[in-house]
């Protein structure tokens, strides 16, 4: 029983990390129908930006040694406010980076009518550039945020239930909450507002959308900014839970993220969250002695679910009228 509860908590915790990664990922997919592999890199960038702003010290292996927006002695140094400000600035910069990526790596392709799959290659190229630039600039090692980043919050809640310990990490509660809130906001904007309707029209058919007076270019820019913003913020949050784990940090989520959004149903915002939680839970419920097969279990589950529901959990069936 306690074990079940603990697994549930662990699963939700890991799952919400996947989910928060996947939100921005699925946003771009739902609008443009492209898998943006650079999302992982933007996610990483968000973490690095924030880290640079609040801590800003790097090791010997890169060209940059450090910047710090709130150096020791400045009024905000080490406060939770400094962190919040940095996280926000980091997210905004990430959003801008995403817009630049769209402008340079995707838009020209769209106007040439290229296969949307090609965007996958192009975004892979962008990811490669970003990751390696990070490595050249600041080296490959990992960095952690100071542990007091969330002020006085305890790192974890631990209580005992029937002699067994139950552990809940504070950061993960925060991530879970944030991803839920973002889900609600995004869900509302896309599902209920005029902007959301226009976005869906662009997603379905940009040509037709423009024929209705919708400025496709503007909406795509907004989408990328949002996606980058969410990605950057997610990167920061996740890295406070773990660490800014080197230049490949976010890219490593690429595959899981893809699994999450496909499982949840491509283009579905709630699907991204549900997909993340399902995969997280599936992994958590793998018995310890088979933990080596954790990844296999998650993917086998994915395989099976896709066979049963080819459109993903919350995806809509692609009806085609003949």
């Amino acid at each position, binding site marked *: 029983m306690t074990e079940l509860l603990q697994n549930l908590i662990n699963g939700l915790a890991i799952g919400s990390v996947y989910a928060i990664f996947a939100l921005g990922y699925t946003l771009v997919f739902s609008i443009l129908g492209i898998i943006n592999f650079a999302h992982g890199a933007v996610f990483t960038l968000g973490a690095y930006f924030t880290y640079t702003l609040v801590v800003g010290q790097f090791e010997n292996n890169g060209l940059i040694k450090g910047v710090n927006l709130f150096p020791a002695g400045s009024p905000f140094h080490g406060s939770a406010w400094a962190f919040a400000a940095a996280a926000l600035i980091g997210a905004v910069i990430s959003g801008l980076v995403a817009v630049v990526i769209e402008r340079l790596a995707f838009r020209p392709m769209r106007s040439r009518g290229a296969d949307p799959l090609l965007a996958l290659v192009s975004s892979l190229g962008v990811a490669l550039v970003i990751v390696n630039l990070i490595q050249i600039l600041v080296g490959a090692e990992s960095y952690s945020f100071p542990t007091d980043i969330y002020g006085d919050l305890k790192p974890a809640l631990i209580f005992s239930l029937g002699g067994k310990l139950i552990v809940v990490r504070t950061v993960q509660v925060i991530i879970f909450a944030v991803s839920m809130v973002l889900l609600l906001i995004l869900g509302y904007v896309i599902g209920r507002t005029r902007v959301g309707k226009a976005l869906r*029209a662009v997603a379905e058919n940009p040509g037709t959308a*423009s*024929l209705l007076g919708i400025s496709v270019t503007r909406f795509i820019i907004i989408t990328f900014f949002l996606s980058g913003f969410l990605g950057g913020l997610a990167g920061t949050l996740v890295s406070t839970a773990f660490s800014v784990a080197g230049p490949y940090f976010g890219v490593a989520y690429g595959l899981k993220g893809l699994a999450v959004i496909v499982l949840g149903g491509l283009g579905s915002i709630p699907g991204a969250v549900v997909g993340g939680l399902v995969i997280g839970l599936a992994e958590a419920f793998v018995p310890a002695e088979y933990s080596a097969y954790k990844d296999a279990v998650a993917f086998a589950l994915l395989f099976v679910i896709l066979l049963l529901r080819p459109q993903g959990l919350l995806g809509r069936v692609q009806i085609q009228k003949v």
Partner: protein
Amino acid sequence: MALLEIENLSVNYGAIQAVRGVSLSVEEGEIVTLIGANGAGKTTTLRAVSRMLRAREGSVRFAGQDLGRLPPDEAVRLGVAQSPEGRQVLARQSVQDNLELGAYTRRNAAEIRADIEQQYVRFPRLKERRNQMAGTLSGGEQQMLAIARALMSRPRLLLLDEPSLGLAPIIVLEIFSIIRELNAQGVTMLLVEQNAKLAMQNSHRTYVMEAGQVTFSGPSEQMVSDERVLHAYLGGQTEGPEAGRSEQRRGSMDVA
């Protein structure tokens, strides 16, 4: 000055020149019909006006403004709406959403609501289907939706590409009465139709296109009885389907 003025327009698909030096004009308040055989370049001309295609040469002026390199959404904002060939409904959105999106450039929610209701009065079938995904509508229902959606932007100039296509006879009559009604309200129209007779009976002037060029034009009532038009478009005679037409098509082939 004419509301729409097309001068010396040429449009290419890659190496294929589909429209070659077309000039035509539509006066404010006029209904103009464009007829021609399959592949003559009618659709291409309309798409150039709505900016879905870029002209290679020539100009398209709307209300005195050169549409030049404007994106299609700007053209809509200026007051050009199109009911396109192939209907182009947003298959995964509901009928209601399609209509609302048709009014995307407008802001007044109450007016929009009223206009949607008006479409539902015009096309009761759409009202029945208001929450159905547009992609699952029957062909004719989609055609109604495409027309209704184009009306939602309250255009000054309405481009209709074969509006009667796939519609039952009663509905076709209904469509033409809507056309007249809108025109009476001041909407200018450029109409491409295969039902040439009906179109000419309901329009002021007619242009005939062949192989990417305007071959002749004139007031509709004259054109209806014009020998050449009669022969080619109003079923003057029956031959094998391969005859006659292939000649015209060869014209557009030569350029390829």
